[in-house]
């Protein structure tokens, strides 16, 4: 049995690359930083593929069950004998899959960025942060215990902050990065409390011990009741709040559309393919606990996911900024993944939801990254983000056009592209377990097709907009990732995912349920044709000419941002921060000032002792001597 200890190289080499580019990047030519980053990613991708091959095909299985393998687990902090925090690598079907996803998308983004970010100042800084982000994300997915997950969770948040605020001279970018960090940090408070409760009940942080279905942890927690839920449910619910923050579920979704202020390849990497799926990944990682100890929370997760995906899909139908549409689409698709997890049960046959959620994560990362990189290519050509400035681009950007079309077909769920397979399995799982969620997701599938093709037709067909300079196709460094990802979006649907990734490691066979698939394809085609009818020809519908109030509300994203601003500014600042600031300024500062002026006052009064008058000194001396004399006489005579 070969050991997987070579996997330690993957995070280490990324961290070293971050240090090298970060520290020495200013002194080298910028292109060297790009090359170092890309070569590092190339190696890590290669190592991930080797790990995946070895795990899934050669060594991972024991008695037909995929094992969780731990090549490394070193003790990092030891608080007491029972509270030990370790850092290590855990290889299990979902972590190996995530390794493949993260490194592939990151490699594509690196290659793309060499072309896209050419000429930007801060080029080295960009690649350093990209390496840091990839390192943190990989650290998150291979974590062996929940505390390590938390550490890397925060690191991912910090890297995301650094990358969103990359154009730090723009105030909107700075505001967006702050918003992202604060919202996710706020959600992480729930996460931390959940971790503390969980480890207090079960006595361990380690994933293998926690998620063992026959183990102590799962059976233990259901005893104590708090607010009508068992304490285990409370802990898992709080952990889910952390996931909701990171994965942009309602009402913590507000940071993701604003995070589009970062450079487009960053959006592709972080906000489409990797960071936002961290929440889904964590729920999947703790899935046995959710399914067996807190099924009510799991159902709640399903409903949250469904509501969010519907909500985001409706908003996406009215937006005009390309990247915002894609951001809302991401929120919607993550909602799909959470719905799939929500309807799933534990145990291989019943866990179609689990498998399909992970499958959708895999395919979504490919085609969403492709969509973002394609959008970057369009923006690069047209120098504007807004759909109103674009049109008829299919004759100027042929490669981008074809790859974008493939991605749109994939996300809409048209066979034989990958999105069809994954979405179909989700809908089957929903159909079998919770009909209401199935209906909602069915409608969302139709809306997805509609708004994606609205985007496609407005950009590539529609009218011939007047361009100041002729839009030109992107350079080869930007086209190569597009082509690779397009091939991936087309082909990966045929991977028999259920053989590899299930909730308990035992593979099962899944097949297409045509009774669900055909209506899905039908509604997708309906969406496409509606979009074609409205947007293919020259039309003014894009500008929101029918601005009745419903349209306005949806266009303004249901005014959720304004509600948040109101709460923070009027309520929290005025009622809480202002009194505290008053207290600090008036009372605490004045106390310090008072002590200082008291000292001044006393010294002012005492300084007349040093008058320079000889006779006064002599007088004091004589008096002192007399006093001492008196004391000596009376004390020594006792």
């Amino acid at each position, binding site marked *: 049995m070969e050991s997987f200890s070579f996997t330690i190289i993957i995070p280490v080499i990324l961290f070293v690359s971050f240090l090298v580019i970060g520290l020495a990047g200013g002194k080298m030519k910028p292109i060297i930083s790009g090359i170092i980053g890309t070569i590092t990613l190339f190696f890590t991708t290669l190592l991930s593929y080797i790990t995946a091959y070895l795990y899934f095909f050669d060594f991972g299985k024991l008695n037909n069950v995929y094992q969780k393998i731990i090549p490394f687990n070193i003790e990092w902090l030891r608080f007491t004998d029972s509270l030990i925090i370790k850092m290590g690598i855990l290889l299990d079907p979902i972590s190996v899959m995530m390794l493949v996803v993260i490194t592939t998308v990151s490699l594509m983004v690196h290659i793309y960025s060499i072309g896209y970010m050419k000429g930007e100042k801060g080029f080295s800084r960009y690649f350093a942060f990209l390496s840091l982000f990839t390192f943190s994300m990989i650290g998150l997915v291979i974590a062996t215990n929940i505390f390590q997950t938390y550490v890397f969770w925060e690191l991912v948040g910090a890297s995301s902050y650094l990358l969103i605020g990359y154009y730090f001279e723009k105030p909107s970018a700075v505001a967006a990065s702050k918003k992202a960090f604060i919202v996710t940090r706020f959600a992480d408070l729930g996460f931390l409390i959940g971790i503390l409760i969980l480890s207090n009940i079960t006595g361990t942080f380690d994933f293998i011990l926690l998620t063992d279905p026959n183990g102590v942890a799962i059976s233990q927690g259901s005893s104590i009741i708090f607010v009508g839920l068992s304490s285990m449910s409370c802990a898992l619910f709080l952990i889910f709040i952390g996931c909701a923050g990171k994965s942009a579920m309602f009402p913590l979704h507000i940071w993701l559309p604003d995070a589009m202020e970062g450079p487009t390849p960053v959006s592709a990497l972080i906000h489409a393919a990797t960071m936002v799926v961290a929440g889904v990944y964590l729920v999947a990682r703790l899935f046995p606990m959710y399914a067996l100890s807190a099924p009510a929370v799991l159902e709640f997760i399903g409903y949250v996911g469904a509501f969010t995906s519907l909500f985001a899909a409706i908003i996406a139908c009215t937006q005009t900024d390309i990247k915002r549409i894609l951001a809302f689409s991401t929120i919607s698709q993550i909602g799909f993944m959470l719905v799939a997890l929500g309807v799933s049960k534990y145990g291989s046959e019943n866990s179609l939801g689990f498998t399909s959620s992970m499958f959708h994560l895999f395919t979504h990362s490919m085609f969403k990254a492709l969509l973002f990189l394609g959008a970057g290519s369009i923006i690069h050509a047209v120098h504007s983000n807004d759909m109103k400035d674009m049109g008829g681009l299919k004759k100027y950007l042929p490669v981008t056009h074809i790859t974008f079309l493939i991605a749109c077909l994939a996300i809409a769920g048209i066979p034989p592209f990958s999105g069809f397979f994954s979405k179909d399995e989700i809908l089957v799982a929903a159909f079998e377990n919770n009909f209401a969620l199935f209906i909602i997701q069915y409608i969302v599938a139709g809306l997805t097709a509609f708004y994606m093709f609205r985007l496609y037709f407005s950009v590539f067909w529609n009218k011939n907009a007047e361009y100041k300079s002729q839009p030109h196709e992107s350079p080869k460094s930007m086209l190569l990732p597009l082509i690779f990802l397009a091939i991936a979006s087309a082909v990966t649907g045929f991977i028999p995912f259920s053989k590899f990734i299930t909730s308990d490691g035992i593979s099962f066979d899944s097949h297409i349920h045509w009774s669900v698939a055909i209506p899905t394809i039908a509604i997708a085609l309906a969406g496409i044709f509606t979009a074609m009818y409205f947007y293919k020809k020259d039309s003014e519908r894009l500008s929101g000419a029918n601005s009745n109030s419903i349209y306005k509300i949806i266009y303004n994203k249901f005014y959720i941002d304004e509600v948040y601003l109101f709460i923070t500014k009027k309520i929290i600042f005025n009622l809480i921060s202002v009194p505290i600031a008053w207290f600090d300024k008036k009372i605490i500062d004045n106390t310090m000032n008072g002590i200082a002026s008291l000292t001044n006052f006393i010294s002012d009064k005492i300084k007349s002792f040093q008058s320079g008058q000889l*006779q006064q000194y002599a*007088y004091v001396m*004589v*008096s002192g*001597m*007399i006093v001492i*004399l*008196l004391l000596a*006489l009376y004390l020594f005579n006792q």
Partner: protein
Amino acid sequence: MEQIIFLILSVIIIVFSVLTVTSRKILRAAVYLLFVLIGSAGLFFMLNFNFLAAVQLTVYAGGIIVLIIFSIMLTSQLNDKLESAGLKKSVFSLIAVSAGAIICLSVIMNYNFPKASGLQPDSSMRNIGLQLLGYKENGYVLPFEVISILLLASMVGSIIIARREKVK
């Protein structure tokens, strides 16, 4: 007989010392000091310390008082009337001084001084001279030499300090 002389001498000393510190004219204060010193020399004569009394008269009364009078003249204050000290200062000093005096006097009166043995020392000039330069037991050659160096240093020092600034 002795007692009468002692009484006269002590009255002279005390009265003139009080006058010294309270006189308004500076030259008169110097003269009163002279009388105090002469009275003190008389006390020494009475105690049969002749050499010391002679030295007191020569150095103290003759040298130092003359020096003081010279300095009074050099700082041209002969005819100025000295101001008396402020009320607050004199009252406070009076309180402190009288307190000290009372304490010391009470200690002195209450202490039993041991009786002396009555041996007479040899206080002739020859003996004193031998003892001053003697280096055996009861010899004072070391303080003698030190004092001579001190006198030299003070001579040089006072000349330098009081030198008139060179006009450039």
